[in-house]
């Protein structure tokens, strides 16, 4: 057999895997914890990364529009959906050692491959714009001018990549992503009625009041805040880049569940923190930039408002990093160029070039004055939901492809749940479409069925 050539990327990944192998040799709790520490990452990053600027603004808009009630358990449900879907990407990565985009290209051909790549590129670019909007909004609370906030976000994105090492990048970004939990103290400072929170989580009540169309927009936006196509591409590629194998699958699953639990805490905290604004009839959807945190100041105090603004900034910055990397991974996989965070700059010019180009272009658009902040954010989340069913079909077909998956093909229960998720997403999309195209028909036929 011809000798395989070894790249710099392989050497770095082998160093990471060597640590895992040594941890496996030891026994006892401390070595199990060490193994967990070494193997978690992509799942927590993808889930906290998806608690991004638009998502947090969507949750804040939910809290201020509907208070504590139906949307709390609904958000928990969306995270359960996310776990089912994302677990498939861990399985695909462990079984095939390929990214999502290259699997679609290889197995379904370039025609469908390009469709999925274009969906991802457009969706990611729109989402990146909203991430910079969130950074701008968060920093404007502290009086930081928009251009400086955007430049700072780009500088942090560059710093995170300076090491050209997946492991270091992952740990630095994880530390940043955990700041998403800043929303938890903000929720505590709002002195929520815990009885109402518990009641809402178990009874899904009170149901939201207001226009059905607005409720549907928020519903779709909250789904889009939890399950989006970039997550599929990112987690699968990051799992491959990290080097997880079939043997690590259990830890990969644990990583995904832990990420979902942490992200659900952040999401619920954002709803609970902004719920008092509902009682004051103050809807965040009508506000701009720094007014978000300022509106919360009478409820959570100056410290709480500052934490909210910081949390929003963090959410935007972390997602800028993860989403631009997901675009770069997909580009590398489709164009057959080296694609790894272990690549030195000279070997990964195209990879890093795409990454920075996407971020720079989105940042430039955000500097246009007068963008309708919350509306843009809600619409981008809705687009993410609409793009999800075709992406899920590819995922379903790949995860059931015995030729590449072997014994890791999806179990029947996962297939049923995926089918249900697709049905729910398509039904929500169709209802949303009807509410726009034929609003009177929509209200007459579905108005009484929907909350609101």
């Amino acid at each position, binding site marked *: 057999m011809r000798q*395989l050539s*070894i790249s710099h990327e392989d050497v770095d*990944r082998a160093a990471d895997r060597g640590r895992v192998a040594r941890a496996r040799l030891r026994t006892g709790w401390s070595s199990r914890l060490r193994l967990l520490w070494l193997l978690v990452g992509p799942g927590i990053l993808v889930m906290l990364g998806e608690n991004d600027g638009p998502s947090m603004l969507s949750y804040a808009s939910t809290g201020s529009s509907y208070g504590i009630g139906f949307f709390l358990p609904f958000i928990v449900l969306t995270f359960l959906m996310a776990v089912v879907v994302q677990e498939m990407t861990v399985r695909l990565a462990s079984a095939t050692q390929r990214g999502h985009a290259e699997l679609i290209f*290889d197995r379904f051909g370039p025609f469908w491959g390009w469709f999925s790549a274009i969906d991802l590129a457009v969706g990611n670019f729109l989402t990146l714009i909203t991430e910079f909007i969130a950074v701008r909004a968060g920093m404007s609370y502290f009086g930081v001018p928009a251009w400086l906030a955007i430049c700072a976000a780009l500088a942090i994105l560059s710093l995170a990549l300076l090491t050209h090492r997946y492991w270091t990048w992952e740990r630095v970004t994880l530390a940043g992503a955990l700041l998403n939990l800043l929303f938890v103290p903000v929720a505590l400072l709002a002195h929520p009625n815990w009885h109402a929170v518990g009641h809402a989580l178990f009874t899904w009540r009170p149901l939201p009041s207001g226009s059905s169309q607005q409720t549907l927009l928020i519903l779709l936006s909250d789904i889009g805040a939890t399950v989006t196509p970039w997550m599929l591409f990112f987690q699968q590629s990051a799992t491959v880049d990290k*080097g997880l194998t079939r043997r690590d699958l259990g830890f990969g699953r644990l990583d995904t569940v832990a990420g979902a639990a942490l992200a659900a805490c952040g999401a619920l905290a954002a709803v609970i923190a902004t719920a008092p604004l509902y009682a004051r009839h103050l809807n965040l959807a009508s506000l701009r930039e720094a007014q978000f945190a300022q509106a919360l100041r009478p409820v959570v105090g100056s410290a709480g408002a500052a934490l909210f603004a910081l949390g929003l900034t963090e959410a935007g910055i972390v997602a800028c990093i993860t989403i631009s990397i997901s675009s770069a991974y997909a580009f590398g996989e489709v164009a057959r160029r080296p694609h790894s965070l272990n690549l030195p700059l000279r070997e990964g010019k195209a990879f890093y070039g795409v990454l920075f180009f996407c971020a720079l272009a989105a940042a430039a658009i955000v500097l246009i004055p007068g963008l309708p902040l919350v509306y843009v954010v809600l619409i981008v989340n809705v687009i993410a939901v*609409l793009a999800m069913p075709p992406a899920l079909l590819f995922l379903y077909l790949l995860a059931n492809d015995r030729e590449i998956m072997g014994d890791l093909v999806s179990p029947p229960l996962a297939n049923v749940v995926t089918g249900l998720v697709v049905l729910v997403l*398509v039904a929500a999309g169709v209802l949303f479409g009807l509410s*726009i195209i034929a609003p009177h028909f929509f209200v007459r036929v579905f108005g009484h069925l929907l909350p609101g």
Partner: protein
Amino acid sequence: MMDKTPKQSAADTDFVLLNLEQEQLAEVRSRRLGRRHLRPYELALMWLLRVYLLFMVGVVIYQVYLAARGGK
């Protein structure tokens, strides 16, 4: 693609082969997997969801137009 990659030393090669499974090597991962045959119902579903997505994107654009006209 891999030809442009600088060659590593023999020690590096041994280290990599000791710690990585063969299918994890960048060169192996760069090889294409074969195409799979799509059944007619799978192809129909793909087209159906593609049409759904394009239609819904049109709806979103219309919604943005309505919102802009309404001065939201």
